[in-house]
């Protein structure tokens, strides 16, 4: 199994992952967890300083891509599609994501992703993501 240091070194080579500014915190064959640092460029609602919904979905996609293919050499796993349910506003502060591999076949992987801030029991968003493995 690939170590976290190598994964985070791979992450830091992806321009858009640097834009998101997150770190992978735990990883095995079936899941990945990551923490994203709040940046002003992540803001969607400038008055309330909430995260942009697209940044939340992007962070979830990034975490899912790492869970499905942690030792990517250059480009992360290829996404096919996604659905996201936005449950609460994402406030200024760190955001956490956990991606679980529901099924990983020869060609396609399905993952469910959850993201939260203070309490895991109060999710900010939940999503389903598909990736093409070929």
């Amino acid at each position, binding site marked *: 199994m690939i170590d976290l240091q190598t994964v985070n070194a791979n992450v830091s080579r992806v*321009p858009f992952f640097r834009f998101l500014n997150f770190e992978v915190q735990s990883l095995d064959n079936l899941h990945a967890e990551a923490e994203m640092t709040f940046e002003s460029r992540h803001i969607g609602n400038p008055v309330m300083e909430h995260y942009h919904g*697209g940044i939340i979905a992007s962070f979830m996609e990034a975490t899912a891509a790492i869970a499905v293919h942690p030792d990517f050499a250059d480009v992360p796993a290829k996404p096919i599609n996604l659905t996201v349910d936005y449950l609460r506003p994402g406030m200024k502060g760190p955001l956490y994501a956990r991606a679980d591999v529901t099924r990983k076949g020869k060609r396609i992987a399905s993952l469910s992703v959850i993201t939260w801030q203070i309490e895991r029991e109060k999710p900010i968003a939940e999503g389903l993501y598909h990736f093409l493995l070929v």
Partner: protein
Amino acid sequence: MSDISKTKMEQIAQMWNARGKGLITHMALDIEDVSSEGVRVRMPFNPDFCVDSDQTLLHGGILTALLDSVFGLANFVSIEGVSTMATLDLRVDYLRPARSRSDVIVRAHCFRKTRHIAFNSGSICFDGHEDAEIARGTASFALTRGDVSLFDAMTKGKTRD
């Protein structure tokens, strides 16, 4: 553009330009066309949004973020008296690898609005390659209506939530 009043067009441009911070500013979006039929927005190529070291392949997430933003604009244009707007859910299909350094063009419209909910659909392609769609999305938004307009909330900091 004739069915949208000049005042509203000015408000829209002001609302997006007055933000000054956040993702929409970073994406440097340019509103190209606005009507009650829908909106067309251009995003210049930005290497920060790429996944590869050559910086020619856009990350899917930025396309999702673009759709979410432009849906919000389409709702603002086509619905009167919106006070707040929150994305309920979003589905995006990535139809092709987004490999190009061309500008990105997003088209979006609100195909159904009720008192509480707006339904949107949109499509993304590279400038000059309108026949090769790279992503398509649908979303629903929860609306609240009231005397503090979204425009006032965005520009003057008034909000009831």
